[in-house]
């Protein structure tokens, strides 16, 4: 029953979610809304689980004085401060909002902005035309990089009335080779997802029940 119960439940919910897509039946629609509401509750609980797990992980690090425990103090301090600031004042104003606007947002934006420097350094060191395929990728990359900024509009040739710029070639690369590849991947992923969903509904795929299921 420990294994059969979840498989039966999975089958019933799977069939319900499949059928509701094709019928306007009021009872099925109401059950569909129930499932969506429960899903949000379950997701909300996983967030709480995440916060508790994060707290316990860092608390253990601090109590055992493990390497880098000082960072854990900052993590727990920040976590508790934001929770209490939101509860005591409001998430829309006061210390919570101030911390978000002047600490969290600039720090996250700064970390992401550092990527520009690392991308420049890494592409200089690693992007080499070692063979035909690498050269093709390199050429397409260079054209798209320049074609996707205003500078790309200015670099090009005029053939008769038509101005063919790097922006034009970049658009062609995105519209045709890129789109064809992406569509192929999407169709493959879609078919894979459908197959996996059917296997879960009929109980062939049971890895979600844990090991040995």
């Amino acid at each position, binding site marked *: 029953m420990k294994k059969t119960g979840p498989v039966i439940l999975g089958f019933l919910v799977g069939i319900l979610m499949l059928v509701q897509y094709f019928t306007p039946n009021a009872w099925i629609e109401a059950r569909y809304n129930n499932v969506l509401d429960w899903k949000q509750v379950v997701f909300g609980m996983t967030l709480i689980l995440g916060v508790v797990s994060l707290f316990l992980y860092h608390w253990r690090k601090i109590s055992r004085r493990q390497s880098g425990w000082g960072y854990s103090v900052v993590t727990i301090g920040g976590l508790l401060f934001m929770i209490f600031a939101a509860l005591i004042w409001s998430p829309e104003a006061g210390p919570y909002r101030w911390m978000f606007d002047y600490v969290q947002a600039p720090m996250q*934006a700064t970390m992401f902005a550092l990527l520009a420097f690392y991308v420049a350094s890494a592409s*200089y060191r690693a992007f080499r035309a070692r063979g035909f395929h690498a050269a093709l990728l390199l050429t397409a990359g260079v054209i798209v990089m320049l074609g996707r*900024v*205003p500078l790309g509009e200015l670099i090009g040739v005029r053939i008769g009335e038509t101005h063919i710029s790097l922006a034009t070639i970049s658009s062609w690369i995105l519209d045709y080779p890129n*789109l064809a590849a992406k569509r192929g991947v999407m169709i493959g992923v879609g078919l894979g997802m459908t197959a996996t969903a059917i296997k879960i509904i009929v109980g062939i795929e049971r890895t979600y029940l844990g090991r040995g299921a």
Partner: protein
Amino acid sequence: MADEGHSHRRSGRLIELLTNVDRRIIFLVIALAVALPLLFPLNLPVRPSREATAYFEALEALDPGDVIIFSFDYEPDTMAELDPMSLATLRHAFRKDLRVIALTNYPGGPGIALRNLEQAATEYGKQPGTDYVFLGYNPDYSATMLRMGESIQATFPTDHSQTPTAEIPLLQEANSYADIPLLVTVTASALAEYWIIWAGGKYGQKIITGNTAIQAVLIYPYYQTGQLAGFLGGLKGAAEYEKLLELPGTGILGMDAQSMAHLLIVLFILLGNVGFFLQRRAARNGGAN
């Protein structure tokens, strides 16, 4: 013989110079390439792409009083690229007297949403509750997107400031996708695709999206099939949209810096490859000797 040795040493030094530029020099040059154009703009021309024009036209086609959904699906890490799109879109909406139902599918999104909404609303004298509402963050984006097709009030029993949504005038008029002619999502992730699949596929919701440049590449198929009415790709998309709106902002301001940074990265790549080919030739010649 001595001349040949000297030539080899010189060639070796050149290869070393081309292939081993100190990363601190690269960092410094990139920093200057980004900072200088911001201080001394070059005013490179910005020409709107067809995708940005379609995005603009989708909003432009709406009538005053129409309600749109605006989903802030990003966190502060990508705000430099996406905030210009959000702000420009809200300015466009409020300029046209559209009403906005805003939400976010990221826990870090509410702060960004509030800042953009408050700025645009202040500029155009719009009031919360009647002209716009911010629903806040709801756990589980898939259930949120699907449930909103049935009832926004049931999906969000209260808004971000804990006001019951049943009491908000705007939500009494618009309570599902059926009442809303356009949905806008500005995102740094695959959420644009999920909106297209769930809100667009199941409920026929018309959608436009603003994306980071890296994400934009992935959504071309949806635009070609008409599942997406228009989109903005990266900071350039924001600049193009600002140009169409005739409201220059940080998108246009950032274009010179981005152009210079891209140009420099390309030059560094070419430099590295010249060094690589010289190195390969030297190795071949060395082997032949």
